[in-house]
């Protein structure tokens, strides 16, 4: 090969691939290759490292919130304290104190009594009340219940509150620590999985606060958002892609849709506040209003991804159907749309995931309200997962720090789940059989 003359060369003989100059050039080219590879690898490692750091922070902070310290106490239900006929009038606080006293012995002063009752959650009285209400025959004997420890003692049990800190600088007194240790020595302190995180609604007390309201709220939000944006988005995309004439107006619409997809989401919140709530009178803080706003925000994403999916269908399929005498409607509904479905569904789920994680517009329409019960429908006041995170992140109690991270983990879990569904649908439906 190298021996043969190079055809077409004039007076100047071209350098051969085996020459010194060519070899030097090759070396430089390989060096450039290596530099590019190293740069890319570095960037990837940096990105993965930062992501890892973020995840590690969240997980290490959030994991403790998945267990909750409980104190098992026997609450005496003497007839003089509890009147089975009128449970509402019972001084449940006294019953709770009685339970603590039964475990630790009588304490004299009311001040000490108050300190003692701070060990378990302030809501213990309601827990006991509900238990008795469910089983009134217990009145006269006693009831054994595991009640959540108050936030500082939960922290103490998990090692977040340090004993060697001077007493003045911590939220638990030496006396309280002594009592807690005593309870612990009696085997009354346990730390089971924190189901309350998922089944309790929001609360002022971290040990009682859960995500039930936020999860239900997010579910209703996504429901409303999906029901509006999916049909509207697909219909618009089909019209734009298959029917609309290509002229200045459709160009303008296309540019606007693309711009809307890049719009800061808080603008949608302002729109929702101004239009849906103030003009149409949609209920504030309700999933209906939030869903409407989110559907506006998700529409461009769905339209764009649907159009891309429709565009990706090979024209040969359209031609085949048209050539058979199929009408435009038949071509779209019987051939193009079914083939585009995997792409459309993927785009929709990505859009829904985006809506699930959206915070700013929901803050504007008041979905960061403090709501202590899960919403019963789309018109009830509610929070959503991201706004709940926002609320908790704002709360001063120590327990909310780890609960915020835990809520973030839950949100990330839902997002991963939705993305997994998108990937599954794509691989399952896209199989061209």
């Amino acid at each position, binding site marked *: 090969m190298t021996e043969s003359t190079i055809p077409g060369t004039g007076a100047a003989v071209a350098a051969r691939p085996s020459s010194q100059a060519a070899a030097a050039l090759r070396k430089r080219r390989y060096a450039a290759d290596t530099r590019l590879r190293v740069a890319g690898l570095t960037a990837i490692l940096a990105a993965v490292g930062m992501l890892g750091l973020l995840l590690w922070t969240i997980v290490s902070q959030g994991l403790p919130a998945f267990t909750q310290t409980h104190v098992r106490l026997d609450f005496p239900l003497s007839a003089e304290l509890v009147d089975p006929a009128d449970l509402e009038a019972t001084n449940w606080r006294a019953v709770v104190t009685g339970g603590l006293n039964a475990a630790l012995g009588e304490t004299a002063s009311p001040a000490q009594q108050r300190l003692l009752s701070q060990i378990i959650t302030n809501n213990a009285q309601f827990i006991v009340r509900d238990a008795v209400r469910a089983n009134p025959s217990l009145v006269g004997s006693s009831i054994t219940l595991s009640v959540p420890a108050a936030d500082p003692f939960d922290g103490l049990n998990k090692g977040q509150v340090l004993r060697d800190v001077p007493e003045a600088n911590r939220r638990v007194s030496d006396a309280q620590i002594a009592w807690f240790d005593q309870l612990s020595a009696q085997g009354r302190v346990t730390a089971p999985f924190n189901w309350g995180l998922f089944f309790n609604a929001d609360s002022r007390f971290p040990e009682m606060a859960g995500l039930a309201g936020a999860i239900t709220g997010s579910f209703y939000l996504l429901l409303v958002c999906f029901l509006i944006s999916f049909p509207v988005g697909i219909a618009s995309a089909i019209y734009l892609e298959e029917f609309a*004439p*290509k002229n200045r107006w459709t160009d303008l619409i296309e540019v606007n849709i693309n711009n809307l997809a890049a719009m800061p989401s808080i603008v949608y919140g302002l729109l929702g506040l101004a239009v849906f709530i103030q003009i149409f009178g949609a209920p504030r803080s309700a999933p209906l209003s939030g869903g409407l706003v989110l559907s506006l925000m998700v529409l461009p994403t769905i339209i764009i991804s649907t159009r891309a999916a429709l565009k990706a269908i*090979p024209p*040969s*399929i*359209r*031609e*085949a*159907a*048209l*050539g*058979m*005498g*199929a*009408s435009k409607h*038949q071509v779209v509904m019987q*051939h193009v749309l079914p*083939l585009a479905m995997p792409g459309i569904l993927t785009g929709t789920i990505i859009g829904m995931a985006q809506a699930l994680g959206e915070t700013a517009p929901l803050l504007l329409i008041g979905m960061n309200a403090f709501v202590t019960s899960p919403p019963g429908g789309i018109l009830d006041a509610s929070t959503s997962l991201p706004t709940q995170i926002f609320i908790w992140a704002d709360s001063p109690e120590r327990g909310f720090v780890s609960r915020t991270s835990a809520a973030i983990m839950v949100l990330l879990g839902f997002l991963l789940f939705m993305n997994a569904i998108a990937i599954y649908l794509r691989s399952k439906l896209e199989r*061209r*059989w």
Partner: protein
Amino acid sequence: MDATLGMAKTTETAGAPLIQSEINHATPVRARDVVVHYGTKQALFGVSIDIPERSVTAFIGPSGCGKSTFLRCINRMNDTIVGCKVTGKIELEGADIYDPSLDVVELRARVGMVFQKPNPFPKSIYDNVAYGPKIHGLAQSKSALDEIVHSSLRKAGLWNEVKDRLNEPGTGLSGGQQQRLCIARAIAVGPEVILMDEPCSALDPIATAIVEELIDELRENYTIVIVTHSMQQAARVSQKTAFFHLGKLIEEGKTEDIFTNPKHKQTQDYITGRIG
């Protein structure tokens, strides 16, 4: 003698009715002065041709010569292209197909089309063939539909190869089988004319030969128009050949004459592989 000499018409007489005295058939498709514009670009310059019944007419010519454009005018597939404007007249059995009162869906049932790339629907073999009869309401019952599907597959010479797997996807067949499936799909609606746009360009020589054999058989019952880049193929399958160049119909005539003794220099240069 003069009749023989004047048989292959050239563009000098374009626009005048071209009665094919040699090919003793009716002409279901007649085109007169067909002009096509894509936006501002003119793609066809006054094409007039008669397509004889129950025979194969081949359109040959270099890429971009307008042969496919003209073919797609015959079943109005160009309607789907934005900015495409067709003037002139194309008649199918005496009726102008560009008449506003004509139903394009019906036209496409009467003038079937087979495309360059085999494009079966991603459905079962049965559903591919049954699709046309279903949307046009040609079968009153399931058994009638079965009969249409079976006979179409038989006519397309595919029956023996697929009879045991009618419910398997059409896309799982080989390229040649897919193309014959597309032909079966086209003939299932009982068209009068079948247009084929380079039907063998994606096939290997054996599959090509099978499809060509099929085209030759279909000629007994259908009027076939085929666009092909392969002059050998045009020579093999067609009875009439038309040569297009730069949007004009340069020459048309009996295939034997075009390939042994073309009248026009451009035709001669093209079919002998000379720089024209």
